[in-house]
Structure formats: structure tokens, C-alpha cells
């Protein structure tokens, strides 16, 4: 792969949009350009350079030695291990790591934020009404952005998936869509909307509840500015041919009311009586949605799974990282890139780290094996925020395949468990 080249149709995992129309220009094995340009994507691709070290207790070892030491540590701690699925992993790598968790009677958790997790458990309680992004683009004629301006964290969401492009039912693009924007406290809404309003955090659940009452056919007789506003928005949504409610399922600086997502799900479901509607939950990148999908098909649960009894159990109230602080685990295997907000959680546990830039982790590791970034170096599949699976087209040769390392580790662990030599 040393020749200069253009690699087309590359899937970017910079955010949950997972745009798969990216062309990457490679010169002398460095990424020098990506197009279409998006700041989040550009930062995610960088120049594509990752280290290629293999360390044990901070010193260089061979990959075979590293795998053996990791297997020894994990097998010895069987039943008291954590497997953590970080970011920038293919779904195949996530699956291989989960197989290890099963072998080790480990807890397995992923980079799903607590805010996003609240959305997943809400969907378990109520269901949901949603759509793939193309459906939103092709049909949505009334949009309600609830406390989110996607421009910052999901830069191409508006241009590629929602407001701006022409859709089959909305050939005028943005001009054919009516956009309502709600700011909720510090969670500001979309600029340039056709209608905007602001609510205090303490008002949002009441507003969403009133809207649901209205779209369900209950006359809103309450006399207050909030009730009036809610009734107006509800009327606009009911008048849509296809309404789209957009919210950020990832955390923001403002403390999120945990009832927000439930109220949005309920409102969207109710809207499907008088018209059609879907809720679009914006999700972060790095294939975190793929981890939830894979965990669901392998275990039945999308995050926070515990194999310690020999089968998967859902432990949403006992997230994996929380257990690190409480000393629940004797060993941990961290696979993939660690979200910044989670990095501190591993301090003091000296995890085994397998993933891109593992050797540069900001905490001590017992074993660190650098591998490639899914989508830049590693092939496989990743999931968009709407759970559409996409192929990964590597544009650079990586240090080593994450899946290969995990499969070697699984075999080494199995050999130790079979021989009784933990």
C-alpha cells in the first residue's frame, strides 16, 4: 500500500453519521486529504499514523509474549474480569472480544454513555418509532430539533441526512421542510429554524407531555404560555405528512433530565396516530452503535452484560467501569480506543489494552498491543447511528489486525483454561 492513491467510498467513524462517501488521499502512507470535508471527520482520520508497539509492564516484548502474558493474567482472574469495548473497533472485533468475555465469565461493557443507555432502556420499556436516516431525508417535512444543533458534533447531518438535500417526497429540500427549534436551557437548538422557542430545563417534560396530550386528541385547556406553545408545536407536528423529532442521545454539558428521552419516545409514538413520525436519536462515532447491536445479538442485551454466572445477564445498574473503582475486578481487557471521559476509570487497574494507540495510554497497562483503527487500518463492518451496517474500507496498512490479536488471545486463554494452568 505504499503507492500514493485515492481510496473512495470510505466510511468515516468520526461521528454516528458514518458517512460512507468519503474519498481519502494517501501520500507516502499518510492521509493528506479527506473529502467531503467535515471537521469531525478530518480530525478522526488525522494523518492515519498510529504507533506499532507491543509492551508488557511498559517494556517492549514480542506479540507472542504479550498474548501469553495477557492470557495468563486473564485466565487467572476468570470470573472477576472486565472486558471493555472501546471505540474505533469493527463489529467483528467487538464480537471477538465478547467471545473472550464469555470464556472468562467476565463482565462486558461498552462505550455507551449513561445518557445513551437511558435511551436504550427507555426503548426496552416502551418501544420506539424511528427510521433510518434516508427515510428522514426523503420524507421529513416538519422537523423538531429538541435541544440540539447537530452542526457541532454531527456536521453533515443537516446537509446529507435531513434538512438540505432534496428528498423523494420533499423535492425542494430545505425549502420544503418546516423546521422548529427548541432550546432547552444550555442545550441550544438549531439556528435558522422557521420557528424557535426556549424552555428552561424544568419546563421541558411538561411541554412534551402537553404536546403528547394534544396529538392524542386531548384538548389542552391549560392557560399558560407553555401550554399555548406546546399546543402550537403539536398542531404543526400533527399537520406534517412525516414529522421528524431530532434529539442528541449523547450527553451534553448540561445535566440531562432522564425523562427527556422517554417523553420524546412517547410523543413520537403518539404522533403516529394522526400522522407519521419518527424520532432520530443522534449518536456518537467510533462504532459504538455496532457494539450495542452485536451485544444484543450475542447476549440479548445492548450494554452492561455480566457473564459471571456462566451466561449473560443484564446489569444496567452496574456499569462495568463503576466496578473498576469498587475493586470488583482482578483483571481487565480494554479493546479499542477509550473515550476521554472513561480514561480515568482505568487508572490503578493496569488493564490489558489492545487497540489503536494502546501503547500511548494515559495510565499504566500490564500489556499494551497497538492495533489499527477500524475503517482506517482494519476492515470489517461498522454501524451508523440508525443501526444501518456499513463496510469499512481501510486506506492504510495498520500495525496488526485487532481481530487477529483477539483470536490469538482467545486461543491462548482457552489453552490455559483447558490445561488448568491459570
Amino acid at each position, binding site marked *: 500500500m505504499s503507492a500514493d492513491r485515492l481510496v473512495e*467510498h470510505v466510511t468515516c467513524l468520526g461521528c454516528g453519521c458514518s458517512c460512507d462517501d468519503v474519498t481519502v488521499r494517501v501520500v507516502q502512507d499518510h492521509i493528506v486529504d479527506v473529502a467531503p470535508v467535515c471537521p469531525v471527520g478530518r480530525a478522526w482520520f488525522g494523518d492515519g499514523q498510529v504507533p506499532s508497539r507491543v509492551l508488557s509492564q511498559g517494556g517492549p516484548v514480542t506479540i507472542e509474549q504479550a498474548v501469553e502474558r495477557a492470557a495468563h493474567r486473564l485466565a487467572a482472574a476468570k470470573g472477576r474480569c472486565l472486558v471493555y469495548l472501546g471505540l474505533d473497533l469493527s463489529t467483528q472485533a467487538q464480537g471477538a472480544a465478547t467471545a473472550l468475555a464469555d470464556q472468562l465469565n467476565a463482565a462486558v461493557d461498552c462505550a455507551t454513555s449513561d445518557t445513551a443507555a437511558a435511551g*436504550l432502556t427507555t426503548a426496552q420499556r416502551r418501544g*420506539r418509532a424511528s427510521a433510518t436516516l434516508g427515510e428522514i431525508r426523503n*420524507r421529513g417535512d416538519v422537523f423538531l430539533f429538541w435541544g440540539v444543533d447537530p452542526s457541532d458534533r454531527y456536521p453533515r447531518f443537516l446537509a446529507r441526512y435531513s434538512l438540505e438535500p432534496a428528498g423523494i417526497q420533499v423535492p425542494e429540500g430545505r425549502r420544503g421542510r418546516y423546521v422548529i427549534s427548541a432550546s432547552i436551557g444550555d442545550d441550544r437548538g438549531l439556528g435558522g429554524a422557521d420557528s424557535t422557542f426556549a424552555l428552561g430545563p424544568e419546563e421541558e417534560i411538561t411541554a412534551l407531555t402537553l404536546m403528547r396530550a394534544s396529538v392524542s386528541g386531548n384538548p389542552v385547556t391549560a392557560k399558560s404560555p407553555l401550554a399555548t406553545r406546546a399546543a402550537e408545536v403539536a398542531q404543526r407536528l400533527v399537520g406534517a405528512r412525516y414529522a421528524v423529532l431530532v434529539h442528541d442521545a449523547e450527553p451534553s454539558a448540561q445535566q440531562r433530565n432522564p425523562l427527556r428521552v422517554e417523553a420524546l419516545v412517547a410523543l413520537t*409514538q403518539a404522533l403516529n396516530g394522526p400522522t407519521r413520525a419518527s424520532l432520530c436519536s443522534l449518536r456518537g462515532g467510533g462504532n459504538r452503535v455496532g457494539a450495542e447491536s452485536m451485544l444484543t445479538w*450475542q447476549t*440479548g442485551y445492548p450494554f452492561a452484560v455480566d457473564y459471571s454466572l456462566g451466561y*449473560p445477564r443484564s446489569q444496567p445498574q452496574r456499569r462495568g467501569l463503576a466496578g473498576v473503582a469498587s475493586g470488583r475486578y482482578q483483571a481487565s481487557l480494554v479493546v479499542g480506543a477509550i473515550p476521554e471521559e472513561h480514561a480515568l476509570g482505568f487508572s490503578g487497574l493496569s488493564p490489558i489494552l489492545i487497540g489503536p494507540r494502546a501503547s500511548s495510554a494515559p495510565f499504566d497497562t500490564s500489556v499494551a498491543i497497538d492495533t489499527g483503527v477500524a475503517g482506517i487500518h482494519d476492515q470489517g463492518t461498522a454501524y451508523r447511528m440508525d443501526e444501518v*451496517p*456499513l463496510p469499512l474500507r481501510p486506506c492504510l496498512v495498520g500495525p496488526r489486525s485487532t481481530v487477529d490479536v483477539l483470536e490469538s488471545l482467545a486461543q491462548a486463554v482457552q489453552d490455559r483454561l483447558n490445561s488448568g494452568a491459570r
Partner: protein
Amino acid sequence: MSGTQLRLVGGTVYDPANQVDGETRDLCIEDGRVVPSLPDRAPSLDLRGMVVMPGGVDIHSHLASASCNHARRLLPEEHAADPMPLPTLVDGDRARSGTGGTVPSTFTTGYRYAGLGYTTVFDAAVAPLTARHSHAELDDTPCVDGGIFVLMGNDEYLLRQIAAGERERARDYAAWLLGSAGGYAIKIVNPGGIEAWKSGQRNLNGLDEPLAGRGVTGRAILEALANAGHELGLPHPVHIHCNNLGMPGNAEVTLASMQALTGRRAHFTHLQFHSYGGPGWKSGAAQLMDYVNAHPELSVDVGQIMFGPATTITADGPVEYLLHRSSGRRWVNIDIELETGCGIVPFVYKDKAAVTALQWAIGLELFLLSQDPWRVVLSTDHPNGGSFLSYPALIQLLMDRTIRDERLKQVNPKLLAGSALADGLTREYTLNEIAIITRAGPARLLGLKHKGHLGVGADADVTVYSRDSDIARMFATPRYVLKGGSLLVEEGQLRRAPAGRRLRLAPGYDDAVLPDLRRYFEAYSTVSFANYPVQGIRDEPLPL
């Protein structure tokens, strides 16, 4: 016992495809296939007194799709109640634990199908946009060979070709789509009705109501895709879920759909859900089965409901919305761009509920009024009518009139007046007929020449049952199950869990369709044309 040779000695063989009806025979297996003979020193397994059949073939299940995964996620309480610890495998196979319920985790699904004696399973409804997901799930579903049926009956590009009268382009597109998805058959769900749901028309009422602004009817969609399947030489004809599923009086549109395809092969799936006479709720089974009996080009699977928990999963979005509204239960709806929809509602069929009692009776009527078991396949539309784990109980209802009549006395009789079952159907299925409706028949309807029989050259997929007066127990716990000659189940215990083989097709087409298709993708799809086809599927396409 997993060597390349094995002689199965002295079993009572039911192999209807080869006209073997309960004969004591030896079966010789070498390198995964049935062979005429083996050397005397070949290892053997004593099956004297046991019942031997080909491995089961499930023509219509929902086990490996994005929709199934949405349903799985919706059911944590079922998973918690039904954990599946690691089975103890031999030969160094690494087992996986999992969870059950009506939509089990993938590994558990494979293990439980094998434990039931089924060795080939198809997921009957996959949106091509998410076919990559289905193949990933199937990669994690061991023990069974399998494939997917590809949803086409509400596809935007196809609707455009039909509206424009571009019959040949519609066929070429169907071929491209089937190959791109790695699919095995064309599936139609509520032709036109899902697009109506998504576009605000809510649904189509009958076969001839046009989609607003398009002029395309369900009839036109049926005809276009049935013709495409025929012209492409697909081994399984179009697999049709008719309009108006679950609605009283829908037998009329079902019959009209069958008549629309007169003279053309077609498979009508989960017919029970489409066999409601009207006005009000009553059985339409006799009318429909009369038609099926008289038309050898048609086949059906029944989609029996079984009392107990189920999870309804279908691309038929409008029907799930109505079920949600009428039952008050949790509801998932996912609109899938340019292609189809997805609806999910967990449900419980109660014998004291009049409508579900009628549904139960209608399914049994379809089985019992059928004159040709080769064209009437056993299914519960897993998990819509009940889990595949309820097949043994269903077989018992078919084989044992006494038990069936006792069960009938326990159900709500309110809507059963005039039903054939209530009037007394005395038929009892034989073991040979069970072998037809659970393996030989579906394999033949799928065009799987190496499945569903035990003749020389067949895949060595074999299920062995210990005779038992309790038919349900007999079929729930096979003594041995072989797949490709490998003993998956020994003495009732899962011992091996090899990966299954992917059954898929890649029909040829005129690539003149591609430039137009590329333009369409660039205009309306959010997935690049180059990234749409699934690459790297485990096995090569089967020859056509």
C-alpha cells in the same frame, strides 16, 4: 463419531422424497453425504427401534435480521428468565452461552434449532439495506445451514419500474438486489401497503387500491415479482405475505392474490394470518384450502399460532401499529429507507381470548383440510405465532386427535361456530406426513436438492428420535442429530456446533440497469452504491 464415515444401523426410516415410509434400513454416510455403502469396518451407530428422518427444514422463520435484533433488545425480561449456559462441546469447539425467550440470542438459536432436529433454516424477511447485519447474525448462528429472503414488495426503485411499465428492468433489478443482499428468494410483504404506511396513506385495502400518486397496485407488484422470479429461474418462487394481514375478512384478498398468479408458482406464507372470513371474525380456512388443493402450482406454510408468549415481528408496519393500539403493548416501528418497514409488538396468545382461539383453530384447519402435504408446510412464523420450540406440541396436535379435541374443549368457543375444527376433523397425521411437512416438502419447495431427503448424494443431515407415546416429547428431544455427517446431538445432548453453510444465489441480469441504478442511489440513498452489496459472505452462491 464425527469421522468421515458412519453407518446408521437398523433405524426405522421415514424418507418420503424417496418413497421410504417407515422401513428398517441402514444409512451410510461419508464426507458429509449419504453414500450407497461403506466398508464393513466403518464406525456405526445402533438405531434399532428409533425413528430416522432427514434434518428439519424451516422454510419461514425470523431468526437473523436487524428486525429480530430490535425485537431481542425489546425483551430483556424474557432473556433474564431463560438463560442458556455454555453447552459442553467436544472436539475443541468453543461454545457460547446466551439467552432464550421468544427471540433468543444467535448462538442459542443455533443450538436450539439443532436440539430440535432442524438443520436448515431461512430468515424470511430481510431488508436488503440491512442484509449485511443478517449475514453477521447467521455467522454467529451455528449448527444450521441457512439463508435469507429479500424484501422487495415495497421497494422504491421497483415501484418506479412497475409504474413505468419497465418489466424487464424490474426483473434485472430484482436479480441485482437478490445477489447484492446475498439472498435466496424474493419476499413480498403486504405489496404496496408498507409504502402506503410510510407515505401517510396508512395501508392499501385489497389488491387493487393504488398507491396514491403512483397508480401501482398490490396486484401489479405481485405479478411483476412473480414473473421476475420465474424468469430468473429461482428455485423457490416468490414468497408472499399478502395484504391485510390479521384483518377480519382478509381471506378475500388472499384468494384474489392466489387467483392473480394463476398458473404461476407462488408460495403463500403464514396462511393462517390471512384466512379470516367475514364479516366479523370467522374462519376462511376451508375456502382457501379448497383453492390451494386444486392448484398444484401453489404452496403455503401455515403460521400456526400456539397459546403462550410470542413476539410479532414483521415488515408490515401498519399491522403492528394496529396491534399496538388494540393491545396497548410495547411497539417498535422502524421505517427503512427506499425499501420497507419494520414493526414489533410482543404478544401473548391466550386460549380464553376468542380471536386467538379462532386463529388457533384456523391454523389447524389448514393443516387438516390439506390434501397434499408436499405443499402445506409446518411453521409458526417464528416467533410471530410462537417459538420454533413449540413445533413438537404442534406436531402432537396434528398426530393425536384425542389431545387435539381435549385442547379444543379448553379454548374460547365464541367464534368457532361453523368452523371445520369445531365440527370435528378426524384426520391424524402420520409420521410420514410429518416428515413431509417438516423436511421433505419445504426442501422441495425451496429447490434444495440435497436437503430434506436421505437418498444417495443428499447432505447427511439426519434426525433420530426415540419412539415415545408422548409425541411432543419425542419431537422435542431427538436422540441424535447429524448435520453434514457430524454428530451435533448425541443422547439428546448438544456435542458439536459447527458453522452452518450460507445458502444464497446470484442470478444473472442485464447490467444495463446499473447506470440508472447508480444515478438513483446518488439521488436518494444515504449509502454509497459501491458499499451497498454485501461482500465477504462465507460461502459462494449456489449454482442456478
